[in-house]
């Protein structure tokens, strides 16, 4: 019996109401007015005390979550006077920083467009949030679908503040992205006649999710990674560096971005990359644990790209909105915050409270689902409490096999089955306990449709960039964003490199930044980019130990935020 006795009683209530719920159908959809009031009352983005005004930089006067604001206003990790810019380690056309889906796609397209490319990664090639994406990639290719419908869904999901040019690019490129990935060898789920097997997703008016079982991002990423390796082995102009995050961008005396300074994570040595164009593809910020939330994100998701871009004067957009995925694991504590794919709901599972009652339609947009869960637990007291003190909502997965036939869960959700089986929970027979978890940075670096930023020579793609999703991203639009804007960034960066001429390299922007910090009295801010979270226990074991479940034990900076130089 995997669930403790304290949770069993509630679990039995879920089982007791299941047949009736299957008969009665889903909870009604929410109206626009109800959605607005629900979200503004319960969504973490609306907790004013968790945000503050930025005091310096291009977004001065704008608002950011406390954790992000600290990083944006942080001290540089480098001493400009101690760095010798005459010793160039890599001299390339395009430097891509970050190697998830967006960085990988940018590198491939830049290389195809004739550029000499260096792609660098903080951890291993391909270790990124992309690899954990499960449910799928949206594309409007079915006959009853259209780019216009995809556009409207995306704008509505984003509260109508998305950049129309970016959304147009997103939806118009979507079918060709699916085709491109297939050409590289991605195995999409298909019907027996070859047509795409597509599922519905929250906030989408058509079935539009292209999946590779529930390992979609893994399949996409390992193919992209293999293609980079293969091109490199063929002697094409694409090279990569692992365990070397960027700590600062380089500029030239004409005000263009001109490369990056990378740091070997193990030896702490600096690598100087001169590049005619730089693509930032560093992903999101989950490991900053905004508002103390656990996260679905990769170990390296620390908002580094935002910091790098901010220091060269690039504005950010919608940085005050984060996505809390409605279904992060709330039990067992070993996998707290771990992503339970939305596909579980697209296949028919409902969210129910401790009494086995529905309280929200299972396929609303993510901010709506998350807010409804928080209301159910915090205001109505209808959550289920775990032995480590977490509160959660049941996700009634066994409904899937009843609705769609025995074996559906095993076939469609192998990753989920495996993850929970490791803790002796059979999701085909028992529900999962879930709660919102920090998942995605809706906003980011300002870009145009060609992925160029307002700073000459700087491009951005993927989660690091903003404007595509407005204030709330839809399921399956992130892996789409990676490849749409990754490809566009690669192409545009290669073109820029062809036309451009670099001046003399300089770190004056870092000196200027440090002066501004001093003038604003912010010398005591932490160093940034953060690079990695600090989860190493500083205490001697065991008294007072808090199980992993307690997010208060996260100390992103701890005492060890030394300036590594």
């Amino acid at each position: 019996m995997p669930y403790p006795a304290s949770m069993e009683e509630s679990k039995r209530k879920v089982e007791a109401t299941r047949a009736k719920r299957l008969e009665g159908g889903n909870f009604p959809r929410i109206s626009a007015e109800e959605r607005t009031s629900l979200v503004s009352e319960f969504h973490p983005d609306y907790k004013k005390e968790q945000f503050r005004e930025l005091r310096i930089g291009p977004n001065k006067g704008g608002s950011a979550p406390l954790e992000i604001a600290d990083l944006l206003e942080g001290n540089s990790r480098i001493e400009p006077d101690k760095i010798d810019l005459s010793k160039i380690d890599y001299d390339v056309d395009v430097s891509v920083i970050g190697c998830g889906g967006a960085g990988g796609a940018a590198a491939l397209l830049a290389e195809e467009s004739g550029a000499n490319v260096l792609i660098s990664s903080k951890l291993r090639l391909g270790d990124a949030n992309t690899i954990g994406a499960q449910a799928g990639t949206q594309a409007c290719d079915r006959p009853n679908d259209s780019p216009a419908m995809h556009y409207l869904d995306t704008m509505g999901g984003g509260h109508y503040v998305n950049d129309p040019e970016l959304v147009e690019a997103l939806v118009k490129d979507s079918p060709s992205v699916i085709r491109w990935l297939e050409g590289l060898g991605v195995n999409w789920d298909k019907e027996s006649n070859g047509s795409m097997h597509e599922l519905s997703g929250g906030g989408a008016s058509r079935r539009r999710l292209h999946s590779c079982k529930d390992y979609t991002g893994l399949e996409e990423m390992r193919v992209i990674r293999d293609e980079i390796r293969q091109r490199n082995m063929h002697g094409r102009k694409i090279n990569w560096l692992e365990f070397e995050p960027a700590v600062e961008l380089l500029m030239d005396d004409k005000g263009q971005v001109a490369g990056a300074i990378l740091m070997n994570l193990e030896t702490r040595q600096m690598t100087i990359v001169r590049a005619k164009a730089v693509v930032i593809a560093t992903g999101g910020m989950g490991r900053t644990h905004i508002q103390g939330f656990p996260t679905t994100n990769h170990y390296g998701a620390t908002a580094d790209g935002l910091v790098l871009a901010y220091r060269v004067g690039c504005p950010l957009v919608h940085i005050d909105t984060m996505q809390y995925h409605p279904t992060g694991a709330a039990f067992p504590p070993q996998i707290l915050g771990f992503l339970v794919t939305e596909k579980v709901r697209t296949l028919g599972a409902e969210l129910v409270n401790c009494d086995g009652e529905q309280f929200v339609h299972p396929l609303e947009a993510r901010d709506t689902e998350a807010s409804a869960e928080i209301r159910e637990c915090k205001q109505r007291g209808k959550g289920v409490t775990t032995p480590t003190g977490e509160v959660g909502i049941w996700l009634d997965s066994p409904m899937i096999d009843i609705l769609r036939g025995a074996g559906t869960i095993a076939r469609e959700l192998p990753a989920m089955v495996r993850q929970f089986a490791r803790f002796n929970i059979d999701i085909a027979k028992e529900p999962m306990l879930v709660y919102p978890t920090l998942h995605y940075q809706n906003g980011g670096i300002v870009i145009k449709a060609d992925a160029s930023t307002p700073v000459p020579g700087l491009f951005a793609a993927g989660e690091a960039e903003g404007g595509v999703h407005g204030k709330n991203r839809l399921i399956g639009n992130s892996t789409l964003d990676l490849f749409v804007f990754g490809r566009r960034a690669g192409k545009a960066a290669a073109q820029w490199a062809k036309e451009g001429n670099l001046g003399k390299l300089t770190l004056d922007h870092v000196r200027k930044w440090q002066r501004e910090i001093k003038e604003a009295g912010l010398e005591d801010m932490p160093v940034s980019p953060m690079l990695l979270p600090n989860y190493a226990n500083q205490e001697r074991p065991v008294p007072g130990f808090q199980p992993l479940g307690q997010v208060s034990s996260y100390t992103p900076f701890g005492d060890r935020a030394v300036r590594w130089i």
Partner: protein
Amino acid sequence: MAEAEVAEKEKVKTLDIYIMGKHYQVPEGLTIQAALEYCGYNLVRSVGCRSGFCGACATVYCFKNDPQLSYALACQKAIEQDMYLTQIPFFPTVEALYNVEDLEPKEGENELEKLYPIILTCFGCNNCTKSCPQDLEVMEFMSAAIRGDYEKVYEKSFDCVMCGLCAARCPQGLQPYVMAMAARRLRGAYLALESKHLLGRVEEIDKGKFDAELEKLKKMSQDELRELYAKREIEPAK
């Protein structure tokens, strides 16, 4: 021992583990990865998605007085009493050179055998299967690779996180995880039937079929969009 006594009082049960030979006491219930961090390690290698998808944290362990090796992903496996742990942060790979565009598989020819002639030396010891932290039947998909059965390799290897443990344990030096990668790419690019509606839509978009409609939407005010959005018809889930 004082610590253990206090722990007893606090009712946190501790377990003895050995990280690269060094003894530590850690609370029960932690994953191997969390236990390393609990002991004070600030991880740079052997850590990635922390969700069992990326394969960065491949781990080998055995137990005190029992040399039999076991395998896991450190972010997914809970610690047990007397575990002896080590990480495999990087496993070297030798990948065959190929270009997916030139790999058109032909009837009666096994591209995989051409790329990786070494696969024929597999003698069926099954160490690869035993080492897989995803519990995949690695030897079975290697047999399928030898037969040129790409479909079977795809099916049996699809959940591979490419951690490299199978290659680490193969006495013949085979690298099942990279060989399966080539097979899956071949299948995806050539053997999967074409999706006609996908190709049709790509062509329609290229020809500008939807441009006027999108231009109209792009010019709409928030209120106009809101109205359209509320009225849109939602296709039932399938």
